[in-house]
């Protein structure tokens, strides 16, 4: 019986090893400097890259975080500090249920909320879709982390005459910072690879949405730029389009894109964790 259990473990870990191994093998073989600095070339031409998709992804994720993080952390504070009642339970349950809503459905909602009003696809619509996905996760982890902060700490603060809002923000939230940020990063990592909600919100773009001409150092520079109200390329979206295309060159680029995506997600998460850990040690 132990043998059987070990077999299941091997069967589960085998695909993991296969996926990572193959991803690194194909990705490292396909990636080069042009890939991260150039925009896609027309079909049939070798070379080119996904620079616009990388910047576009960062841009969309930035919009999503701007909306999703404050809202999610705020909701988490509500659940932990004011939510020990019926309304709190309802919100808690709603957040858990929202967490399970398929991302493609959220994309549909963002489409009818933003795209239909703007009358075109945009990075903003993609950001809104991703932010809706971030809030439930962030609020639930924030709540858990705040509840770990000892009650005595809050009481000590009240005892010193510190008002409640100040206690919550400067004592409770501050004590739980590293946990809260870990939760935020988990939500970030989850939405960073999302493709489904971007298909009909951000749509994708084969170039930059705009170029800026800047006069600097006595020369005119053309700077690529991403606009929030224009269709925008995103890394996961580009991987999808390239993966289902019939061209070998695009397949190669899809693998390179997948590797970049994984590396960026892991790097973002570990960088923030590292900074937070150092910050907390420094201040305590």
């Amino acid at each position: 019986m132990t043998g059987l259990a070990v077999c299941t473990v091997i069967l589960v870990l085998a695909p993991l090893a296969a996926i990572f191994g193959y991803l690194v093998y194909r990705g490292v073989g396909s990636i080069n400097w042009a890939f991260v600095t150039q925009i896609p070339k027309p079909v049939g031409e070798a070379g080119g890259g996904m620079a616009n998709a990388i910047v576009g992804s960062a841009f969309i994720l930035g919009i999503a975080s701007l909306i999703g993080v404050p809202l999610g952390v705020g909701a988490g504070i509500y659940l932990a500090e004011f939510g020990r009642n019926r309304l709190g339970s309802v919100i808690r349950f709603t957040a858990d249920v929202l967490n399970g809503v398929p991302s493609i459905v959220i994309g549909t909602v963002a489409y009818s909320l933003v795209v239909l009003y703007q009358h075109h696809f945009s990075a903003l619509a993609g950001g809104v879709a991703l932010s809706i996905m971030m809030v439930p996760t962030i609020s639930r982890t924030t709540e858990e982390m705040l509840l770990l902060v000892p009650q005595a700490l809050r009481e000590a603060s009240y005892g010193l005459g510190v008002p409640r809002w100040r206690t919550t923000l400067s004592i409770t939230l501050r004590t739980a910072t590293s946990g809260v940020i870990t939760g935020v990063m988990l939500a970030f990592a989850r939405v960073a690879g999302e493709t489904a909600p971007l298909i009909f919100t951000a749509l994708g773009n084969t170039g930059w949405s705009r170029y800026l001409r800047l006069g600097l150092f006595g020369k005119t520079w053309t700077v690529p730029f991403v606009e929030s109200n224009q269709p925008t390329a995103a890394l996961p979206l580009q991987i999808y389009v390239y993966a289902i295309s019939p061209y070998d060159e695009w397949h190669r680029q899809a693998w390179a894109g997948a590797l970049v995506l994984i590396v960026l997600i892991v790097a973002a998460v570990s960088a923030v964790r590292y900074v937070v850990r150092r910050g907390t040690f420094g201040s305590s």
Partner: protein
Amino acid sequence: MAAPLLRSSTGEVPDQIFKVVITACGLAILGMLVLIVYELTSRSAASWHAFGFKFFAASDWDPPNEVFGAKPFIYGTLVSSLLALIIAVPLAVGVAVFTTEMCPKQLRGPLSFFVELLAAIPSVIYGLWAIFVLVPLLSAYVEPFLSKTLGWTGLFVGPAYGFGMLAAGVILAIMIVPIISSITREVLLVVPQHQREAALALGATRWEMIRMGVLRNARAGIVGAIILGLGRALGETMAVAMVIGNTPQIVASLFASGHTMASVLANEFSEATGDIYTSALIEIGLALFLVTIVVNALARLLVWTVTRGQPARGHA
């Protein structure tokens, strides 16, 4: 004298503002749910008025002639998800039992870390891997073998292209193993230690102890974990859309290509022309939303009954 002084220093007005702002954030979560329901119902109204309940029973999907029936997609979603459960459940429960009951302590951490790493891989990368590794593997080895040995069942007949329902089921299984096994592990961990000791004291072997002392006690929670996995599989989009073949048809053979509710949205939504076409797609989205809400709520309740209100999370 002291009372007004105290009041001014505690700052009641900022406290009130703070509470209102924070409560608004909490209510925003309810607002999101209401917004989702409102947008989906209002935008799918046209299709609902045109087809009514027949929408879910009709199997013709013919956008140029504006004839829409969702049955092939419902069929595809159900079959691919059930297939995924059949493959994933024994594996996930096995892994959970191994990590909680058998595995040496030093291995426990890394093992659950690796299993949860599977959950962190974006769905589009699963799809990419499935297209270039899984599908060729299926068409070269697995499908010929299945059709030779189990072809008589009618489930494994036809040309072995690799792309199709079977590929979708397998990739979904790989994707839902982490959630099922991590929640099953949480549920197994709350089974009281004395249950295990009692079973062993009665002369049970380790296997009997696991079966009677642990798994039986955690039954409801494990079912909850499986249903959560089902919820994930029902709504999974990209990986499925990349390997299922995207043909709206109902065919018994698992080698044949199909379509799911999520994959049709991914494939056709941005190209849908005409109000009724978009509306029909949104109605599929609404149906998918309602199904996953019910499935998830059910699963949460089941897991809650076992872990007694401890929040059950995917990452723990």
